[in-house]
């Protein structure tokens, strides 16, 4: 700068103009379209990867393992006993143990379970693993939980338990110890029950135009966000129809078949009334219970053609239960009555008052041992399949397909979820009148006798 003269030389004017242009360039480079903060953030998020990293960035490597829990015992939602061995008719509560958990912290709205015990979650930020002996194996607390929301049902496989927060956080814990394996987030609100699907967790998340089925790798925790959007209403429930190669979603009065590889809609059918629970899949046939007190059969092989509708007097309390071999359905209604339906024709064979006053409203089917087939004049062809249902207060009952009540078994509390099916045993989570949760081990009469005998031996 020439201090001797105040007149600005042309090259300084030129340099100043060039500088002004550079300033304008910087300005538009910094925020080219003068975005608002949120728009800018989302624009800058493009290509951002660190926020998608798992915690820790490199989780401990574990072997892939199969799921050990499905709602209603399997992904076809048939509620049939997953144990192959037939059962005795007589069960007795061998022991029950109250769960040592502060009542205000535990909400067993969502209960899942496998041979290791129960996993509970609900409208508190806590999720817990409860062993078969009723002791708390581990607890996990999310930082917070929005009002009115609940932690989704804990998903479990052989090694891990997956906790899913309604705002998209996913926590994978060592199922046995509760140690964190990895934490990640799908960064958007979860709008329907997540499921385990092959190697991934499928987390239905809110997206700008519908729902995105975001896959999270169960081993690495990596989020795959490439799945397309689906035009589905939030709150849908999924079932798997292997013979159709499809996942079946139900929401309101719609039944929708989805291609799980491309996540595209294959077909959909609209029923006249809202559907209760997920559809039950048996081969290519789908069974749905509607709030208009009907059970509907839909032919999945014919793009959702409705074959029949069966009247069950009162609205259903849950989805129907499938009885294999005899091809029948059973279902509890809101009055606590049990209906038995022919799955082929839709004929309602009988309706009896099970007087169910328990939080559990699902029935399940299991096979009885051969000696009972003869004893209760059941058909050998149908392999002893019977209907098991919560009944009265704090009990469950076993019915033959001919409506005969075989037995009624008392529990220490009201069952809140389908029991965990163990070999020759049932494991129940119940809620007592004293507002305690208890775990009950139901053993066959013969096994209890054997245990008692063994206990008495040393004394003698």
């Amino acid at each position, binding site marked *: 700068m020439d201090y001797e003269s105040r*007149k600005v030389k042309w090259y300084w004017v030129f340099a100043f103009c060039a500088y002004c242009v550079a*300033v304008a360039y910087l300005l538009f480079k910094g925020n080219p379209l003068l975005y*608002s903060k949120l728009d800018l953030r989302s624009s800058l998020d493009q290509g*951002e990867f*660190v926020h998608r990293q798992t915690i820790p*960035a490199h*989780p*401990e490597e574990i072997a892939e393992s199969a799921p050990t829990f499905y709602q209603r015992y399997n992904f076809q939602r048939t509620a049939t006993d997953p144990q192959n061995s037939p059962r005795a008719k007589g069960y007795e509560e061998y022991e029950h143990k109250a769960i040592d958990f502060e009542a205000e912290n535990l909400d067993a709205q969502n209960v899942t379970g496998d041979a290791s015990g129960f996993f509970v979650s609900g409208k508190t930020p806590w999720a817990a693993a409860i062993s078969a002996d009723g002791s708390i194996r*581990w607890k996990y607390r999310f930082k917070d939980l929005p009002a009115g929301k609940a932690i989704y049902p804990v998903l479990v496989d052989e090694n891990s338990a997956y906790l899913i927060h309604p705002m998209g956080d996913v926590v994978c814990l060592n199922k046995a110890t509760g140690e964190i394996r990895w934490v990640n987030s799908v960064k958007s609100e979860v709008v329907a029950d997540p499921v385990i699907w092959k190697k991934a967790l499928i987390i239905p998340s809110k997206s700008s135009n519908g729902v995105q089925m975001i896959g999270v790798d169960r081993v690495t925790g990596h989020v795959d966000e490439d799945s397309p959007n689906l035009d589905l209403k939030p709150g849908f429930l999924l079932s798997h129809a292997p013979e159709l190669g499809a996942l079946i979603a139900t929401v309101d009065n719609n039944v929708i078949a989805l291609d799980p590889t491309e996540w595209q809609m294959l077909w959909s059918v609209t029923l006249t009334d809202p559907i209760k629970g997920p559809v039950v899949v048996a081969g290519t046939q789908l069974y749905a219970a509607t709030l208009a007190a009907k059970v509907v059969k839909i032919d999945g092989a014919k793009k959702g053609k409705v074959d029949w509708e069966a009247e069950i007097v009162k609205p259903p309390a849950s989805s129907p239960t499938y009885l294999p071999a005899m091809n029948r359905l059973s279902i509890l209604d809101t009055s606590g009555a049990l209906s038995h339906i022919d799955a082929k024709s839709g004929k309602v064979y009988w309706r009896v008052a099970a007087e169910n006053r328990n939080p559990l409203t699902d029935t399940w089917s299991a096979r009885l041992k051969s000696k009972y087939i003869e004893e209760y004049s059941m058909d050998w062809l149908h392999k002893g399949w019977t209907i098991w249902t919560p009944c009265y207060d704090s009990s469950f009952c076993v019915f033959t397909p001919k409506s005969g009540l075989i037995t009624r078994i008392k529990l220490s509390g009201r069952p809140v979820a389908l029991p965990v099916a163990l070999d020759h045993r049932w494991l129940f989570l119940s809620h007592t009148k004293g507002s305690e949760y208890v775990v009950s081990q139901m053993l066959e009469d013969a096994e209890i006798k054997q245990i008692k005998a063994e206990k008495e031996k040393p004394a003698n």
Partner: protein
Amino acid sequence: MEILKANIWEVKKSGSLKTLGGLLALFHLMLFIYWSHEGSLPVKLAAQGQPMCRSFMESCSWLHLPVALTALFFYSYSIFAVLAAVILILTDWVTFGFYLLLIAFGLALGLYFQDLRMSSNEGYFILFMSTAYLLVPSKHRMMRRLIVSFFVARGLSQAAADWLTGAWYSDHLLLPVKIAEWLAAISVLVNMIGGAALLFRDGRYFMTGWLSLFLYYCAHLYIGEFLGACLALGVLVYVALDEMELRKAEREYIYQSFIRPEPSFVWGGAFLALFWAAQISPFLSLPRESALRGFLNVWTLHPEAAHEECEQRTFAIYKNRVEEIDIEPQLSRQPAMYCNPYLRYLDLRGACQEMKKKDSDFVTLSSVFQVRNFREKSSYRAFEVKDFCASDLAFKQLSEVQWTTNRAK
């Protein structure tokens, strides 16, 4: 002492530099008031006991003064600053005033450098200007360039996405978003172009730049940016006096001296070069962990509007449970340090001790901290540690200690 004598001679010969000395003393007083307002910040940090070190230091406990000595320095600082301001502005005792200012400056350095949490753009500006004023020759030429550099650097810092969203204006004024965004853009233009215009001797350029900056900082003072706006208005007063003096000098040739010729600008140039190297460093792709970057970071202004975003997830590990928790800061953080990993480290270490006392089942804290820096346009994971309560864990190790290699018991 010769260097001090030369500097005092320069100040004595220039009324505007004498006034600038008084203004700098007033700036020190303002800094004292700001620190006092923050609860006697230097004393509070000294009492806390865990100093926060600058990134290039392995340990800074040697900088940490005892609490009583810090308090003595702190209150003495205000007295020397007031005396220096009164003497340099109201009397002709330049030498006495200069030495008083030098002592106040020394005290300020002692207080400022003991803990990184004392760091602020305003404090940096005052100390940098004071250094140049007290110790670097050829101040007549350098001070204006330094002031222009600060305005331009501020504009450069604002020409980033975080400032240009207008969030700072939206936070301080009830404005529609678009107006806030345009104000942010105008702010960049005023600082960068108005600041550069102060270098021109042509009255049209000079006055346009000076007036635009003056009005801008008056508006900022009104909005609520007290300290920064006062400093800017103060130096603008000096620039105006300097300009008038130069015009007078051109008429009277009062600067022609054969005994003490015009000092060399080498030192002033080096000083300015250091300043600009530091300001440009965030735009260079220097490795995050490099020593050069660590050194230059010390001299870099904090980003404007501090919209750096960070995410920390902390898990409290107990014997039979895991809880995701928030860690409360041990001390309130300045906005510019909200996402500072070292502060987070100190907070976590403090929380470890507290939680161990509270609950016998407590085992450790696991924590992950990632920072989103708009300038870099992506986040980086500052640390990911499974056992934060390990007794041998030091901040310098955080980048090495990975989750999987540092297991919680």
